[in-house]
C-alpha cells in the first residue's frame, strides 16, 4: 500500500460494526495464523467462502535493519543482513558485500566469487525447499514438507561444515568470504547433488503431479505478464508469468556468465500462464538448474586467495551505488550512500517479498478463502523480508 492513509481508512472500513454491505463479512487473517508464513496480516472481506478483497497489512516484523546500518561500521553490518531473509541469508550477504565492494572499488578474488556462487545456489535450493514444501503444507499435505526438510538438513550440514552456522551464515566478507572451504567439502556437496537430483522426480511423483494438488493450484490467482511487471514482481514470480528476467543472465554479476544454465519460465504447465502452479513449478525447475551451476562451479573453481586485503576500519568516499543480485525470492537490491566515514550514510534494501505483497490485493479478488493461502504460498512471501 502506497498510502498509509488508505490503509487506515481500509481498517476503519473493515470494522465489523460498520460493515458496508449486509452480505459481507470482514475477517482478520493473521497476524497469528498458521499459514501466513510469519507475522503477516490480511484484512479480508468475504461473502461466505468467496473473497471480495484482501488487503495486506504489513509492518508487524519491522526491525529497523536499515536504520541500524547507519550506526554500524561496514564490516560490522554483515551479520544484520542475515536477518533480512532468514531462509536465504547468503544473498543478502552477497548483495551488501557487492555494494560496499563497488563503492570502495575492491577487487574480489576469483576463488571467493566461485565460493559465493556455490553457497548462494545451495542456499537457493534450501530456500525453494521451504517455498515449495510450505505451499504443499498450506494445502494440507504435511509429508512433502517434511521430506524437503530432510533434504534441507543435508544443505544445513554442508553450510555448518563450511562456516559453522546453519541458518544465519554471516559467511561473506567485504572483499571475499570469511573462510575457505574445507578440503572434503566439494566431495560432500557432490554426494549431496548425486543424492538430491533423483529426489526431485520422487517429489514430483509425491506431490507435484498429484491431481488434487494440481487442481488446487492450476488456474488459481493468475497473474498476467503485464500485471507482473506493473506490480514490480521479481524472481520466480515474474518468470512464472513468462517474463525471462533473471539477473544471473541479464546482469551477469559475479561469475555467473561462466556457467551454462537455463532460466525456467512459466508456460502454463497445467493451467493458465502465470497461475499458482506455474509459480510452484518454476521453483522446482530452478532447483535442477542450481544443481547444474554448483556442479560446474565445483569443477571450475580456481585456487588462490579467498579474500582480498581489506582494511578492518573501512572508510568509503562520498558516493552512492545500487547493487543487486538474483535472490531466491527475486531481485534483491541494496542502495548505499556513503559519506566518507566508516559507516553508511543511508542504506535501503529492496526485496522480492515486499513487491510480491503488493499484488495480493489485485490477484485475490474473487478467489476462495482457501485460495488466498495458495496465493500467499505460491508467491513465497517471507515476513521478515517484507518489513526488514
Amino acid at each position: 500500500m502506497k498510502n498509509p492513509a488508505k490503509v487506515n481508512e481500509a481498517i476503519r472500513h473493515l470494522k465489523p460494526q460498520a460493515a458496508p454491505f449486509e452480505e459481507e463479512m470482514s475477517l482478520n487473517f493473521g497476524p497469528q495464523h498458521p499459514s501466513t508464513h510469519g507475522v503477516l496480516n490480511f484484512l479480508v472481506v468475504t461473502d461466505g467462502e468467496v473473497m471480495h478483497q484482501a488487503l495486506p497489512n504489513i509492518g508487524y516484523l519491522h526491525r529497523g535493519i536499515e536504520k541500524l546500518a547507519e550506526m554500524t561500521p561496514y564490516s560490522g553490518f554483515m551479520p544484520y543482513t542475515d536477518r533480512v531473509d532468514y531462509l536465504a541469508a547468503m544473498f543478502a550477504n552477497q548483495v551488501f558485500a557487492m555494494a560496499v565492494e563497488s563503492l570502495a572499488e575492491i577487487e574480489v578474488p576469483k576463488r571467493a566469487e566461485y565460493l559465493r556462487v556455490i553457497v548462494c545456489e545451495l542456499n537457493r535450493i534450501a530456500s525453494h525447499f521451504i517455498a515449495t514444501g510450505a505451499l504443499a503444507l498450506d494445502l494440507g499435505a504435511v509429508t512433502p514438507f517434511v521430506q524437503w526438510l530432510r533434504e534441507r538438513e543435508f544443505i544445513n550440514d554442508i553450510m555448518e561444515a563450511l562456516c559453522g552456522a546453519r541458518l544465519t551464515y554471516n559467511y561473506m566478507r567485504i572483499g571475499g568470504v570469511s573462510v575457505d572451504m574445507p578440503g572434503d567439502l566439494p566431495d560432500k556437496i557432490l554426494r549431496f547433488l548425486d543424492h538430491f537430483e533423483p529426489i526431485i522426480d520422487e517429489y514430483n511423483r509425491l506431490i507435484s503431479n498429484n491431481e488434487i494438488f494440481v487442481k488446487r493450484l492450476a488456474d488459481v490467482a493468475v497473474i498476467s505478464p503485464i500485471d507482473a511487471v506493473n506490480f514490480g514482481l521479481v524472481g520466480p514470480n515474474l518468470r512464472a508469468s513468462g517474463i525471462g528476467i533473471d539477473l544471473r543472465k541479464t546482469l551477469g554479476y559475479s561469475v555467473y556468465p561462466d556457467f551454462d544454465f537455463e532460466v525456467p519460465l512459466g508456460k502454463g504447465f497445467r493451467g493458465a500462464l502465470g497461475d499458482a502452479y506455474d509459480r510452484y513449478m518454476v521453483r522446482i525447475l530452478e532447483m535442477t538448474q542450481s544443481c547444474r551451476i554448483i556442479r560446474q562451479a565445483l569443477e571450475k573453481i580456481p585456487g588462490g586467495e579467498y579474500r582480498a586485503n581489506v582494511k578492518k576500519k573501512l572508510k568509503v568516499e562520498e558516493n552512492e551505488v545500487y547493487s543487486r543480485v538474483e535472490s531466491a525470492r527475486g531481485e534483491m537490491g541494496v542502495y548505499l550512500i556513503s559519506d566518507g566515514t566508516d559507516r553508511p550514510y543511508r542504506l535501503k534494501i529492496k526485496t522480492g517479498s515486499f513487491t510480491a505483497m503488493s499484488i495480493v490485493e489485485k490477484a485475490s479478488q474473487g478467489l476462495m478463502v482457501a485460495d488466498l493461502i495458495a496465493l500467499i504460498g505460491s508467491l513465497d512471501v517471507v515476513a521478515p523480508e517484507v518489513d526488514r
Partner: protein
Amino acid sequence: MKAFADKLFLNIFHIQAADSPYLALWYVLMMFLVSFILLNFAALFAGIASYVERRIAARMQNRIGPNLVGPQGILQWLADGLKMFLKEDLVPQTADKFIFRLAPYFVFAGLFGAFVALPFGYGIVAADLNVGIYYILAITSLVVVGIISGGWSSNSKWALFGALRSAAQIISYEIPTGLSLMLVVMLAGSLSTQSIIESQGGWPWEWFVFHSPFTLAGFFIFFISSLAEGNRVPFDLPEAESELVSGFNTEYSGLRFLIYPMAEWANLWVVGAMVTLTYLGGWQIPGVRLETIPSSVLLFLISITIFFIKTLAVVFIVIQLRWTLPRVRVDQMTLICWTYLVPIALICLIGTMIWMLAFPWKSVFGTAIRILMSTVGGSVMIWCMLRARHNYVIDKDRFEKLKGIPAWYPPWKLP
C-alpha cells in the same frame, strides 16, 4: 443381545429370565454392561489410533514420533488425554454458553451410538437391528449437529467457517453414502449388519465388492464419502488447520475439545467396520460354513480376528491417505459429490439391479466374473505394494549411502 441376556440369566440363576420378576432390572443391568464395554472399546480404540497414526505419520516423514511415554511411547495417548483433562474448561465470553457446552455431547452421542449396531464377529453385536445400516447412517448424522452448533455458538468467524463447511460437506455426502449402501442392501436383501455379512462369503470372490464392476465402483464411492463424512483428508475442510486455524473447534479447550478429535478417531473404526461389513465380507471365515461357527470357540475367535484385521487394514489405508494427500477446496468438494459421486452411484444402483437379474449370484458367468475381478483386484493391490516397496528401497539406499545411518528401523527395534 436379548437372547444372550436370557441365556446368561438361565446359566447364572437357573430359571428362565421371562419367569423372573427382576427381568427388567436384569435387562437394564446388561444394557449398562454392554454400553460400558462398547464405550471403553471406542475410547481405547480412539486413543490407540491416535498414537498409531502419529507413529505411522512419523514413519512416512522420516521422523521418530512419540516414543517416550511408556515402552515405544505406547502410552502417549493416555498422557495427552490426561493433559486435556487438566486444562481449564474455557468458555468464550461472547459465546452462546449453553449451546457451546452442549455441542460436544451431540458429537459424542452420534459417534458412539454407531457402535451399538456394528458387529465384531460371528453373532457378536450389541443390537442386531433389522435397520442396522440405516441406524448407523442416521445416528452418525448427529455428529454434524454437534459440529454446527459448536462452530456457531463459539462466536468466532473461523469456527463459523468450519461449521458451515461441515454442514455443506456432511449433508452432501450423506447421499452418495446412502446410495452406495443401497447396492449392498439390494444384494443382501436385508438392512441388518449381520445378515449382510452372512449373505457374503469368506473368499474374496464371495465379497460384494467383486460382485460386478458396479459394486466395485460403489465400494470406492462409499469409501470416499465415508472419508468425507468423517472429516478425514482429503476432505478435512471443517478443521483445515492451514486455512481456518482449527475450524469448528477453534474456541474449545480441555475435555470439550478432546471430544472432537476422539470422535474423529473413533470414527476411523466406524469407517473401517462399515466398509468391511458391507463390501469386504465382514467376519466370514474362508472355507468355513456359517452353521459350523457356533460349535467352536476357536472359530468364534477366528471370525473376530478376521473382522479386526480387515477393519484395521482399512483404517491403515485411511491413515496413509491422510498423510499423503493435500486437501480439496470447498467448491471442489461439493463438485466431486454432486457431479461425480451421486450420478455414478445412481448408475451403479441401476447397473447392479440389471446385473442381479442377468447374472444371478450362483450362475456360472456370475461366479466367473467374480473370480476374475477378485484376481485382478488382488493383483493390482500386490503390484501397488511392490511398487511402494521398490521406491522405498531405492530411497533407503540413497539415504544410507549419504548419511551412513539406517533410514528405517524394523518395528521391533524402533528408536
